[in-house]
């Protein structure tokens, strides 16, 4: 098992290398560079700044070098945790990216938790009460959840929150708490700004997993060992929970692996709509201002996160299901 994980981690290195080259290439695609954007912005504000200053700045930040030199300079710093300099923030890239990534991971993990705790019981209920009113209602709800993307739901939530509930939505906390010391009310407020985006992010995955759990349970419940368990006179709850669910849960883990990339992707958009400190808002801003090292590092780490989560899913699957052998 450990050999398998190490092998997979090693296999990620060349992939990451290719990804970093592609990332750098994509980030370089827009015509012009950061200082062109800055110059245009300054010109728009009416004040003037001579082109020579910008040329000096370009040389200072190495933007006058050929692309491959710039790429190598970027990569050079990686082992020391240096991912470049954000020109817009006048700060190193890594601390900026790290905080956003952390928030994204925490939000994503929590939304996965919600997903699993909802989808599994509902899937079990649906399979044991096939075609009942409850099953149909859950299925319809799931279908709608599956169809609507997170950013539309986030917009809906903002709409409902602002218009119907008349509460403060969006952001990490309400404005009046931003400078307040930690108190119970502040915690409640933080929580009230934390769970809606997590639920929204998890909704489409929830629907997907609820479906998979249902069909997987239906398959399992028709197998002979379930009949045997019933014939032995076991209690129905034991048959379902300890015999059925244990086997039926495996496909769910592979599906979970497919859902994590969606959550990572979607969190960027939902973060922008709800103004949360996920990777999204800063990444968007970096793209717009052509703050290339910041944008590139974001894209790189989101890709890395995605690869890691895939690996994690494989490991968990192997751990749960002893029938799977990784050679």
């Amino acid at each position, binding site marked *: 098992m450990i050999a398998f994980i190490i092998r997979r981690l090693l296999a990620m290195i060349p*992939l990451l290398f*290719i*990804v970093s080259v*592609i*990332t750098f290439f*994509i*980030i370089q*695609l*827009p*015509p012009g560079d950061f200082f062109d954007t800055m110059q245009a912005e300054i010109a728009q504000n009416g004040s003037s700044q001579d082109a020579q200053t910008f040329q000096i700045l370009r040389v200072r930040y190495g933007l006058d070098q050929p692309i491959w030199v710039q790429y190598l300079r970027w990569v050079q710093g990686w082992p020391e945790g240096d991912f470049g300099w954000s020109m817009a923030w006048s700060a190193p890239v890594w601390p900026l990216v790290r905080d956003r990534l952390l928030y994204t991971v925490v939000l994503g993990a929590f939304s996965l938790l919600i997903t699993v705790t909802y989808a599994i019981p509902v899937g079990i209920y649906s399979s044991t009460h096939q075609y009942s009113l409850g099953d149909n209602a859950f299925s319809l709800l799931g*279908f*709608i959840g*599956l*169809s*609507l*993307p997170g*950013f*539309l739901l986030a*917009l*809906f939530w*903002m*709409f409902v929150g*602002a*218009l119907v509930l008349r509460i403060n939505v*969006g952001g990490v906390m309400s404005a009046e708490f931003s400078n307040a010391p930690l108190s119970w009310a502040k915690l409640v407020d933080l929580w009230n700004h934390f769970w809606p985006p997590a639920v929204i992010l998890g909704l489409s995955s929830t629907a997907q997993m609820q479906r998979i759990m249902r069909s997987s349970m239906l398959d399992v419940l028709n197998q002979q060992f379930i009949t045997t368990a019933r014939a032995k006179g076991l209690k129905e709850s034991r048959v379902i929970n300890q015999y059925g669910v244990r086997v039926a849960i495996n496909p769910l883990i592979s599906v979970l692996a497919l859902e994590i*990339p969606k959550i*990572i*992707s*979607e969190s*960027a*958009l939902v973060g*922008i*709509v709800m103004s949360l400190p996920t*990777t999204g808002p800063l*990444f*968007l801003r970096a*793209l*717009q201002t052509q703050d290339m090292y910041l*944008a590139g590092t*974001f*894209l790189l780490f*989101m*890709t890395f*996160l*995605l*690869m890691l989560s895939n690996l994690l899913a494989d490991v968990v699957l192997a751990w749960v299901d002893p029938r799977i052998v990784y050679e």
Partner: protein
Amino acid sequence: MSSRTPTTNTAVDTVTNGARNGHVNPALAAQSAQLFDLYRELDQRLQQERYAEDIIVGAADHAADEARYSLSQWQLMWRKFVRNRAALVGGIVIGLFYLTALFANFLSPYTLTTRFRDRVYVPPQGIHLFDEGRFAPFAYGVKTGLNIDTLERVSEIDPTVKYPLRFFVKGEPYKLFGLIPAERHLFGVAGGQGAGEGAINLLGTDRQGRDMFTRILIGSQVSLTIGLVGVALSLSLGTVLGVVSGFFGGWIDDVIQRAIELVRSFPSIPLWMALSAAIPAQWPPMRVYFAVTLILSLIGWTWLARQLRGQVLTLRNQDFVLAAKLMGANNGRIIFRHLVPASIGHIIVVATLAMPGMILAETALSFLGLGLQPPITSWGVLIKEVQNLQSIAIYPWVFSPVIFIVVAILAFNFLGDGLRDAADPYTR
């Protein structure tokens, strides 16, 4: 059957055992024999009844099967599809949406550039069907102003002014299908089409006094076709690469699969964002449109290719492919004359299910200001204006494009779901 047979056997056993042992009460033996006969008779009768029943049921089944066997594959799919109400409704809604998009210029009362300077942020207007007991549809006039305290735009109905509703009114000129010059609109109010005079705004107006209904209808042209074009692009790439990958296997399969893995190792939305940020701002609208479509299909093809590869892997070993091979067909012929047509049902399903994703991706990018930009009007561009929370709270009708998006997405999903079930007509 099985439950009755043991009973009879037990009766036989009892009788024979009793007779063999020799010391049995004769009366009891006779009774047993009688009972045995009774059992046997009953059993036979039951069996006969069962047979008769089976024959009737079997005949009916057979007839149904016979009718089913004589249908073509497409007829079977259609039958199965029609039985799924949700999918049928989804299909009809999609059809209506595209029809509306096709005639959007004619169906909408105004054009994209029509601005009512004195009708900014007018709420949706109702159509009143009866005027003083007589059927004469009309809309009331609207007075607008600015609330000095809150700086909100306020508007109220002016019951003294009535604008009669007319069909096929002359309005601003437009080009039907982008080709035929015309100036008749399906409906509108009589007495002035331009700014300053009467107007009908079914879904209200936006911050520049433009008719929301018109903008949503004409915006659907862009949003719905970007899905079609994007899916067509990714389908052509995905079909060729997916089928080739599945058919040849070996190193070709390896290379294509690694390429797919590489593309898929990027999170889709951030990648889309990064790529669309590279579209130069000064490009003409048409080129931006195609650039966005191209970017969307750049990731879309991987999913389609995966799906088709799986399909081809199962088809590859079927007899008809072997037959074609033995008859000397070359690989190109087998792929394009046999494998692709055989998976066409699957391709349609996959394409339909890919549509909502494309439409939503465009919406999301335009919403972020990275995709399409005004003056192109798409649903995404429209909801970009909703971003401002304040405006939603005060002028909620600017939120209405979202409802159109949601309906379209749900309809596509219902349709795709139904098609997926129908595409495999041999399972019941």
